[in-house]
């Protein structure tokens, strides 16, 4: 379903974000729209400090920052861009957000059932159920989910669930002036992203690539990005790992250890 080309949320269909660094102008409207809509508190002592990571003075994604724009200055050229041939340079902006993983580490570890999967196939923390245990924080391979210092409950991007249920698109995508954040059904956006990469390759941006989580233990991520570099310069893990990936090894070794112990024990009786 769409209005004026804008894809709208549909229950039962996977909602997705496609964030494109080649059209992001680093205006931070997404950050502001997100905080306004979600009524995220501002804490002057923590937030209003010079950090000087280029134009980024924020703390990164966290309990009070569900969208965050990273400013990456690199001494290398951008495909197709003419700057200073002797001192090549580029400046890339990535609006980062919770990935809403297919295999969500936070959800796997949540002991209370506070973290659920919605009818839009997004990962949602129910603040009234969360007891602040913090297991989810270590479970997220992207370092997204975080606890607020006041009551210890965990917060992260809600994918504007409250907007989606009434047919509205998330605040960040709504505010983005250059459509660098696109919202829509996963399958539609995923195909758009492939076409976008092809177009950029044809236009002389060979470094354009998608970061979709596919092939890693998180499975596909509902929020995926078009980057112009490896994930590391953008502070993203090259191979995100969900805790459950270790389950097989952990349980196997635990069982084997138990079995070995059992044998040793039995042996002890037998010998004894």
């Amino acid at each position, binding site marked *: 379903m769409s209005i004026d080309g804008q894809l709208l949320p549909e229950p039962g269909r996977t909602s997705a974000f496609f964030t494109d660094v080649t059209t992001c102008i680093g205006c931070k409207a997404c950050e502001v729209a997100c905080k306004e809509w979600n009524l995220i508190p501002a804490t002057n002592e923590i937030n209003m400090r010079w950090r000087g990571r280029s134009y980024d*003075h*924020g703390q990164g994604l966290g309990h009070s920052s569900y969208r965050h724009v990273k400013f990456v200055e690199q001494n290398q050229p951008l495909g197709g861009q003419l700057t200073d041939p002797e001192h090549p340079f580029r400046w890339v902006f990535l609006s980062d957000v919770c990935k809403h993983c297919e295999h969500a580490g936070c959800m796997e570890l949540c002991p209370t059932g506070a973290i659920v999967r919605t009818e839009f196939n997004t990962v949602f923390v129910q603040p009234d159920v969360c007891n602040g245990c913090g297991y989810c924080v270590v479970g997220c391979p992207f370092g997204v989910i975080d606890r607020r210092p006041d009551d210890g409950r965990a917060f992260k991007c809600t994918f504007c669930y409250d907007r989606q249920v009434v047919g509205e698109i998330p605040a960040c995508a709504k505010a983005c002036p250059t459509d660098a954040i696109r919202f829509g059904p996963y399958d539609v956006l995923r195909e758009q992203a492939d076409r976008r990469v092809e177009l950029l390759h044809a236009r002389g941006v060979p470094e354009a690539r998608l970061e979709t989580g596919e092939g890693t233990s998180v499975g596909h991520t509902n929020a995926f990005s078009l980057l112009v570099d490896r994930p590391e310069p953008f502070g993203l893990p090259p191979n995100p790992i969900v805790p459950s990936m270790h389950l097989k090894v952990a349980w196997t070794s635990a069982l084997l250890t138990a079995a070995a112990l059992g044998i040793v024990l039995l042996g002890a009786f037998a010998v004894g």
Partner: protein
Amino acid sequence: MDLEHADCVLIQGSSMAEAHPVGFRWVMRAKERGATIIHVDPRFSRTSAMADIWAPLRVGTDIVFLGGLIRYVLEHERYFRDYVVNYTNAAAIVGRGYVDTEQLDGLFSGWDPASKSYDPASWFYDAGAPAPHSPNEPVVAKDASSQNDPTSQKNPILSNNGADVGSPRDRAVAGGSGARDPSLRHHNCVFQILRRHFARYTPEMVERACGVPQKTFHRIAQELCDNSGRERTTAICYALGWTQHTKGVQVIRSAAILQLLLGNIGRPGGGIMALRGHASIQGSTDIPTLYDILPGYLKMPEALSHEGDDTLAAYVSRHGNRLGWWAHTETYMVSLLRAWYGDAARADNDWGFGLLPRICGDHSHFPTFCDMADNKMEGMFIMGQNPAVGGQNSRLERRALAQLDWLVVRDLVETETAAFWYDSPEIERGELRTREIGTEVFLMPAAGHAEKEGTFTNTQRLLQWREKAVDPPGDARSEAWFIVHLGRRLRARARAEAKANAEAATGADAPLLALTWDYELEGAYLEPKIEQVVIEINGYRFGDGAPVAGFSELRGDGSTACGCWIYSGVYPSKGRNRAAERKPKGRYGHGWGFTWPADRRILYNRASADPEGRPWSERKKLIWWDPAEARWRGFDTPDFPVDKSPHYRPGRPRASGVSAKSDIAAGAARPAPEGLDGLSGLDGHAGTSPFLMQPDGVAWLFAPIGLKDGPLPTHYEPVESPTGNLLYPGQAANPAAERFERPDNPLITSGDPAYPYALTTYRLTEHHTAGGMSRWLSRLAELQPEMFCEISPELAEEVGVSHSDWVVVRTPRGAIEARALVTRRIRPLRIDTQLRVAGTIGPVDPATPSDSPRPDPADPSYSIQSATTSDSVASHFRTIHQVAMPFHWGRRGLVTGDSANDLIPLLGEPNVSIHESKALLCNLEPGRLPRGAPVLRPGLDSGASHEPGERG
């Protein structure tokens, strides 16, 4: 929005992505469609990050760069010949008295050194030249039909060719209709003058003066040329990076010349986009907050002019034009007077023309603040402005506020301006003491934009209505409320005085008493009904009050009233507010808001068709002449009389079916005041003249009148520049620049080694101008919490600071502290600083390379003269470091910091009085600014000798 149709977008003098992120959407759309995006800017900004090409440029050298492009277009014959010959004044022949800067080393003829001003008479078209062609005859290749046309022998305009007829603008072009050489070969035709004028703007010169590598320059020039012509168009976007110079208007003129040569005006995806500074700032020039114009760009009458604005007739003959659209000046003026003074504006009292206030000189921002500093003013209203932070040489401005008896500040928060008397750098330093300040300050809380209704008019001239979402809190009220109720109280007082003393009614209070001030008040707060104001602006019939459908219905006989003629049509009938309409249709979104004038989305769109009225190409069609219907049609409202045939010629019998009173689609139905030959207004223009505001119907490559600093753009260095003028060594800065020479506004002598770095200012996306609307909002404030300056790693090393360290930035006006943001986004440039200047401006001694220790200004033996030794003519390439600073911070709000405007001098561009904030000199010192200590050092920084609290 039309930017989306561009094949190439050149952004210069603007970081559009940062300061206009929403408008940049259309640039990104163009890019997605394959357009080339070019950004020319001293720093690699968020705009550069999106561009295909970024060219670093030394601040203040835009005219060299644009002049280089103009020369490239001319020398490589890449201009759009049919467009240039027919739609510009390239063929006009300039009088023999004209002498160019080429001969006069940087000055034009007509310069009077005593008054430091130009007499433009020698720039006029040649009034004595014979008429080789019919006026405005379209000249398409190998079409010689006009030569045989008997009517061309009798030129109706030429026959009226008396230098004493009409306004100065009429006189300036009086010769042009006859004296044209469409072959563009005549020695003194504009085209050849242009060619000679820009001959020295070579690619080598661009590299030497601007620091743009020749390879990059050539690539940009090729992109512009390849993306212009019949099939393709290029757009140019600029903002305050072009205007805030002592030559700002001429920078924009350079862009206009370039776009006209390339045929990019009036066409889809073309044009020059003036990105306005903030919301509705376009509206605030249309219905001006400027001192020298009235609504709809009517001139403000002057009290002390030689030619006189004493009567309406004198005013109209001085400021109107016989030919072109301004022939309607009287109609619009009478309608304005009727709107303001109602029944007090009558035929027998010159329509109340005498009630209008008069100006008697320059009443712009700087002269006003200088007067205030000199204790010549009693009080001031400041609304929506924060000069204590946003004003240049802010120390002077803050000290000036202390000289007032009373000050009214209306704002959303208690800004630095409202708090200057107890919280300012001057108070902190002990320069001013609260108990000694006599200014009574009234802070009136203002309603925010969501708390009041009204319209915005932004960059694209689009009026958009905005509803009120919530009531303002507490005592906060709208501006309209404040002005209307202030007016009611003042009028009540004036009426009471008039009752007591009959003379008062005819004295100074007469205009106040004559005002129509009958706005209906509504709601609990007694807010004026804004719709009623919109109807007044739109215009209405005087008897029944019915809105007029557009400016075509305005009359000069007093039967209509109109508050701003260009906005007429926004409220065409009872209950229909077009600014509030939200149903966009078609390519240009007609039906969403209302674009002045007459809902035209692209001005001068007649130029999108060839002289015959056919689109230049299918790909770039916009409007065209439909011979079957005998009218113009297309995707936009024609900016041309809708039934005026391309074949119409003044003085020829009209083709059948063409109205004798061909006027604009929504244009004037009444024939304009007629000239001696019976032709005036648009009837004096041919059907091939798209630029209908101009008296000669064509766009001016060369301005025979209207500019105070020359008919063509010429490169001058900023008043404070690290180098001399490579192009015109005898003329460093704009000779006509307004300099406010006073002890508290000291200037740096160019080449002064104590101030070796070029400084420029800019805005961030995260903050709003002087910060009143962002520093108090946590979600914006946290995004850019501290004042910083951008410097290159090379400069950081030279100064001895690392990223995030504090630095002190110093000029003779003041010193501020900022974080050093060390980045390769700002590059040192290799510039030819060859200086050969006789007289005042001294070069840096070439024997003192920039990397050797600079003279210490604190050293008693230091003097500026000691550096003024060289008279070498050899090229001397030197590394020029540039420092870039945002200016949003002040002492108040959630995030605080020093303001860059403390550093900026008062300097005025001669035409529009804008300041020079984009190119000046400074010094950097590591460390923090000592608090509480005098910021200026006595004897070293002039102006420091002022005693604290001194009252002028």
